[in-house]
């Protein structure tokens, strides 16, 4: 049967809808199964062990940093007065932002019928979940009394105390944790048919049982597919407003305060655009590596990078527009404190951070106006890393430069991170990359069933009534 399909002449242009084929080289259905299952079934290449080793060492650094923090207290960080919300909050917002592209690619592009998403949605969703895990660590360890984070939850307790629901910080607790849960559900639902594929290909009993348990007994029955598709569509419909709400709520943490530089109505859309921007950049970084290491260059091909680069250009320019608008409003508002906060960003002691942010986020993505550069893998890789650096600095600029000089000059101060600030940030990358490295080894990193569905031979053109 596989050969029968291979015999059909297929160019890289879909013969019916005349669009470029989404998967290069006209593979068969079985070819997709083989290519995607291979990393899960083969002995991994040496590079995988090296990556896992490096990631684990950073994860250990994370463990040590947190242990030392719990032993010694938040004094090991550079947080001071007035910069009481320092690196931990920068890192929190950074990681939550990274976590936005997964749901964007899975849900928003699904609803917009962007079929190119199928090659990258699985990995992007996994990335989302791991990024949210990293993000959730930071508020937990930042509270100073790390044995009390359950105070943030509405739990009955012997003190008869309850959370204060008018606070944006409480909204944030709900938004981020529910976002994590819904992303996990969405990801797992998408995995079920592919786990069944791995189960059916298993040669050993252990694999068959383990993947079989998680495949829940899926048998590819169309009566199951009918409900599956409906559930997937509705989850996408629910996740779309959710992804827009999460970073809006994160931005309320700042916007609802009265601090110049934070107290602006532009924050929700500006944060959402920035989050999607940084998340897409992280997807590009990861996919550039994975497609080469795991021989998936025909499944994740220049067409997909071209589409992602366009989105990066769009969201990067939106972020640039937001930077400009902030300055305009600071001047137009006539509030001298507001105007000072922005002049201080561009010319003050943290001007280096501000201009790093602008160069990385606004200037570097402009190379994507050129089609050649949108599909040039080394350029994509470099720009994606620059964007992530820039987006980390965006949060640094927002949190630290706004706090370090507020209304009262007598309380102004400079902020310097300590070794442990750096170690905790580097360690959180260890957590992220450890999870991602394990993911690409043990779970199919491309949604096989969805990719098969976008192959030209999957479409039925003459439907019986």
């Amino acid at each position, binding site marked *: 049967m596989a050969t029968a399909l291979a015999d059909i002449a297929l160019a890289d242009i879909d013969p019916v809808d005349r669009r470029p084929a989404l998967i290069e080289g006209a593979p068969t259905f079985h070819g997709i199964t083989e290519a995607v299952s291979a990393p899960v079934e083969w002995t991994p290449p040496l590079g995988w062990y090296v990556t896992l080793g490096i990631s684990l060492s950073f994860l250990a650094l994370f463990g040590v940093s947190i242990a030392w923090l719990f032993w010694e207290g938040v004094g090991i960080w550079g947080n001071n007065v007035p910069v009481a919300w320092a690196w931990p909050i920068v890192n929190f917002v950074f990681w939550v932002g990274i976590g936005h592209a997964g749901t964007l690619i899975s849900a928003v592009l699904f609803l917009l019928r962007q079929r190119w998403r199928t090659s990258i949605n699985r990995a992007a969703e996994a990335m989302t979940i791991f990024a949210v895990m990293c993000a959730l660590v930071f508020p937990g360890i930042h509270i100073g009394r790390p044995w009390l984070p359950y105070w943030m939850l509405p739990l009955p307790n012997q003190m008869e105390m309850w959370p204060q629901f008018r606070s944006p910080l409480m909204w944030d607790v709900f938004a981020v944790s529910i976002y994590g849960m819904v992303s996990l559900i969405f990801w797992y639902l998408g995995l079920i048919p592919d786990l069944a594929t791995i189960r059916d290909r298993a040669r050993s009993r252990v694999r068959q049982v383990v993947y079989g348990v998680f495949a829940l007994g899926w048998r590819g029955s169309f009566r199951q597919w009918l409900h599956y*598709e409906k*559930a997937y569509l509705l989850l996408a419909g629910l996740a779309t407003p*959710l992804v827009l709400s999460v970073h809006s709520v994160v931005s309320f943490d700042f916007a609802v305060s009265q601090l110049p530089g934070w107290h602006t109505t532009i924050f929700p859309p500006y944060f959402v655009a920035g989050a999607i921007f940084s998340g897409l950049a992280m997807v590009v970084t990861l996919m550039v590596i994975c497609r080469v290491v795991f021989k998936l260059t025909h499944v994740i091909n220049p067409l997909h990078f071209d589409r992602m680069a366009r989105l990066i250009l769009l969201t990067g320019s939106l972020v640039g527009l937001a930077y400009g608008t902030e300055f305009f409003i600071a001047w137009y508002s006539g509030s001298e404190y507001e105007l000072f906060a922005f002049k201080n960003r561009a010319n003050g002691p943290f001007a280096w951070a501000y201009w790093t942010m602008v160069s990385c986020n606004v200037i570097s993505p402009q190379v994507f106006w050129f089609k050649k550069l949108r599909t040039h893998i080394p350029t994509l890789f470099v720009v994606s890393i620059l964007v992530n650096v820039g987006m980390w600095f965006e949060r640094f600029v927002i949190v630290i430069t706004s706090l370090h000089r507020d209304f009262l000059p007598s309380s102004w101060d400079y902020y310097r991170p300590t070794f442990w600030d750096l170690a905790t940030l580097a360690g959180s990358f260890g957590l992220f990359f450890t999870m991602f490295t394990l993911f690409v080894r043990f779970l199919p990193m491309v949604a096989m069933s969805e990719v098969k569905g976008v192959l030209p031979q999957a479409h039925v053109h003459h439907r019986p009534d």
Partner: protein
Amino acid sequence: MADEKTYGLLAEYSDPETLMRACAQVRDEGFSRWDAHTPFPIHGLARAMGLRRSWVSAFVLVMGLGGAALGMLLQWWVSTTAYPLVISGKPFFSWPAFIPITFECGVLGGAAGAVLGFLLLAGLPRHHHPIFNARRIGRATDDGFFVSIEAADPKFDAEKTRSLLETSGATHVEPVTA
């Protein structure tokens, strides 16, 4: 009728198009206990199989609204009864401030409803199913397109059903033991 040891017949087709034509035939013959097995969802197959729309949406609606209602109720009870606090001189039940959490709880309820509805309606998780006794069914999650007809179907006749499947363009037809 077939003996109790037979679950039914499983026919394999070479591509989605033949499968869809075969499904339309099986539907027109009036079978009720039958199914198609495919590696990915095929558009238009629900129509060819005569299946009606999925009711997962009802679960999502009910649980989504339920989640939102519970979220608002929790905040109302905490803020007015369990632990009333005066914050910026606002009323205890200052509902606009409770909208974000109400919305998030609604999404959580809806997402849980989508998954629960899917699992209930699709009959999952399930430990075993007789269809897994078929030799070729493993390809349904790889590159095989199948139609299965249960022996328990009132229209089932070992000989006639087999020839129906064979003439509908199947490349293989195999009996499945129960």
